[in-house]
């Protein structure tokens, strides 16, 4: 399924008074980077910003997110127009440093969860303690049996990266919970 026709296109919640709302995030370039932590400095140079070294850390700069989600694994998000430059930079790096940079942009779709109750909404269907996440933390986890990557970008703003095929389910799940919070049930 191509990114132009994923299930969440054009969706929005009409809940102006809800303490938390969800919306699809604009399309972006996404990469999965595997490289030895010893060579992180070279990868950071190719990426153009410092890549976080500790699992769970999230480094954000305008339009870009870089999360360390495994001992040798990073998840990178960048604006679409920067995709070619990033691929070229890592392609040049490949000559001297073994790594793998995989474009996963067509696999996933982003959902933003915003509002004072955002953490509570997510906690309804995530087993670990969402409220205990720090700002700029990113973790791979499970939401109602669906594997996701969860980013906390601000106190009241989260972002989920979920596969296309699961996104419809996650959307309706979160929409239902947001509705419950709006009604105060």
């Amino acid at each position: 399924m191509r990114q132009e026709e994923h299930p969440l296109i054009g969706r929005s919640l009409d809940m102006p008074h809800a303490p938390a709302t969800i919306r699809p995030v604009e399309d972006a370039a996404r990469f999965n980077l595997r490289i030895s932590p010893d060579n992180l400095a070279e990868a950071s140079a190719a990426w153009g910003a410092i890549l976080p070294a500790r699992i769970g850390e999230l480094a954000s700069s305008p339009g870009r997110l870089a999360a360390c989600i495994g001992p040798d694994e990073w998840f990178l998000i960048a604006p679409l127009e920067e995709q070619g430059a990033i691929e070229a930079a890592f392609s040049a790096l490949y000559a001297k440093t073994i790594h793998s940079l995989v474009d996963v942009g067509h696999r996933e779709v982003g959902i933003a969860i915003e509002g004072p109750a955002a953490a509570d909404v997510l906690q309804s269907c995530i087993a670990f303690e969402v409220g205990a996440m720090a700002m700029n933390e990113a973790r791979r986890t499970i939401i109602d049996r669906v594997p996701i990557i969860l980013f906390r970008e601000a106190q009241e703003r989260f972002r989920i990266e979920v596969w296309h095929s699961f996104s419809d389910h996650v959307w309706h799940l979160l929409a239902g919970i947001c509705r419950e919070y709006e009604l105060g049930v």
Partner: protein
Amino acid sequence: MLLIHCPYCDATRPEVEFAYGGQAHIARPLDPSSTTDEQWRDHLYIRVNPRGIHAERWRHIHGCGRFFNAIRDTVSDKFVTTYKAGEPRPELTEKEGAR
């Protein structure tokens, strides 16, 4: 729900993020062709199945993706400790083992 500490993430996460990987510290014979059928059978299939402290492998499959080792009490289902793959099995005192 069990809470398991992942030594790679350095975070405690619910059991649903993990997958069980069987008994830990089983070294594959360096020269399989020189082993007898009985030795090879033992390597493949014979496990200790203890009542009490058990060293086992777990994988944080819905987190960092890494295998690690854990010491778990099979009676109480309590995790005594977890440690990174490749590290030796920690020496436990009687008191720790009895928890």
